């Protein structure tokens, strides 16, 4: 068990007139090597949860154990934890401040005391991980990049700390379809080729259902479902819709086919699966 949340609650503005409870007794276990998608309506506590995982917020109640160590018992441990868990906020390119991309990426590793010799290696490697060419990009200003490149450079700056777990808060927000596709292939690569654990928040059901291996559904500060994408989209259509979420379009299509009496499976997540299922149906005739 790598990350373990025990009865974690978080309240903003504790003991103030504006007190709001963002998370209510969350219990969660996350292993190494998982690919998790977190979905939920706006304001359900997703971002708060991500910040708790990284130790940026301290839970008002409960414990967060990482490698069976309570991360808030010891402040020194907290920095160690942040080396292991990289967090990319929404619009991570908003934190750029350096003149060149290589300096920007060097910020993280320098902070954790990486030597100059290793630094260049790290920059090269993290740029490669996000599929940006080192020699072409290292001296360019981060502000001269396109939206998609900026996003990937920002993620590279987090990868440079060499985290085992990468948390992404809506990585594809406001990207054009092509950059979005590119970024997703980078994320899949991080998971498959570089064996990183990925925790990702997204509002796009197609992305979540196709990529992730486990989905956590949140509502009003609680985890209400935690299962494989197939199980979640198979059994909980009404429940998901009642909390303002939708299914992937293709799942809807198959669901409707089934409703009008076609013998297809409704637990379909990708267009590819749907194609096979429909072909099977046609061939049977």
């Amino acid at each position: 068990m790598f990350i373990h949340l025990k009865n974690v609650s978080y309240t903003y503005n504790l003991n103030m007139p504006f007190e709001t409870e963002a998370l209510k007794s969350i219990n969660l276990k996350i292993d190494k090597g998982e690919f998790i998608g977190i979905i939920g309506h706006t304001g359900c506590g997703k971002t708060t949860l991500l910040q708790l995982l990284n130790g940026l917020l301290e839970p008002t109640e409960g414990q967060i154990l990482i490698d069976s160590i309570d991360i808030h018992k010891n402040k020194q441990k907290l920095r160690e934890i942040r080396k292991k868990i990289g967090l990319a906020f929404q619009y991570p390119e908003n934190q750029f401040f350096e003149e060149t991309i290589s300096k920007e990426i060097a910020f993280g590793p320098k902070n954790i005391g990486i030597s100059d010799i290793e630094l260049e290696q790290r920059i090269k490697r993290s740029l490669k991980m996000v599929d940006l060419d080192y020699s072409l990009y290292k001296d360019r200003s981060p502000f001269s990049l396109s939206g998609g490149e900026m996003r990937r450079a920002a993620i590279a700056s987090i990868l440079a700390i060499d985290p085992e777990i990468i948390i992404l808060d809506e990585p594809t927000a406001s990207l054009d379809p092509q950059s979005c596709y590119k970024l997703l292939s980078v994320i899949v690569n991080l998971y498959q080729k570089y064996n990183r654990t990925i925790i990702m928040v997204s509002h796009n059901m197609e992305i979540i259902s196709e990529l992730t291996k486990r989905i956590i559904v949140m509502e009003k500060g609680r985890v209400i479902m935690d299962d494989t994408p197939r199980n979640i989209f198979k059994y909980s259509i009404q429940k998901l819709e009642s909390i303002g979420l939708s299914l992937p379009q293709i799942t809807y299509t198959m669901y409707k086919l089934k409703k009008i009496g076609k013998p297809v499976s409704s637990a379909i997540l990708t267009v590819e699966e749907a194609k096979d299922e429909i072909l099977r149906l046609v061939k049977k005739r």
Partner: protein
Amino acid sequence: MAVILIIIAIFLVKSWSGLVIIGAYLFINIFLAKVHPKFVLKGIQPLIVILLFTLLIHFFTTQGEIIYRIWVLNITREGIQRGLFIAVRLFYLILSTSWLTLTTSPISLTDGIERLLSFLKIFKVPAHEIAMMMTIALRFIPTLMEETEKITKAQIARGADFESGNFIKRIQNFLPIIIPLFINAFQRADELSIAMEARCYRGGEDRTHYRQLLITNTDYIFFIITLIILIGSYLLII
């Protein structure tokens, strides 16, 4: 308006009895405005240091009858009196301004300022533009604060350390927060001006208001009561 009068009064009052009257009047008003006492207290909290500082400065620097000596510092009777007096004045000042900002929305506040400044238009003072800039500035304070927090968190997530190191190091450590903050603020200002332009914004002359500020009878009554209390407390000499 009345708050400005009160502030003027706070500066004018010379006697203790006057101070007590104004204080009572302020507290009654705050009570009537149904402001949560916690908010008022929170507004005063950061200024306690300044209050204590003025108190001490006056204790030690005023000439007069010496009642206590610490090393080269003399505490005088007059010093204590004047120190307390100034501190209470400052306290009222903070109290009255926070009362104003807690009860009045920034928009009506700037509208009011525009109205008050409008007589300056004869001297070509751009009252409307000043009011508009104030509105925008007030509007973006919470946004900027939110953003500072977000950037700080993002940089901490990248291993930044804002707690250790000496003074110069610490200032350097803040660059990764300040630079993105400025870049985003400039971008936002740019977008805002374009958005205003796109909606054909033209300030100043002949511009009407969506919300009309009306001076009602209550306002006049309040104004007169305040004026009476002020003159009264000013005239009290004991």
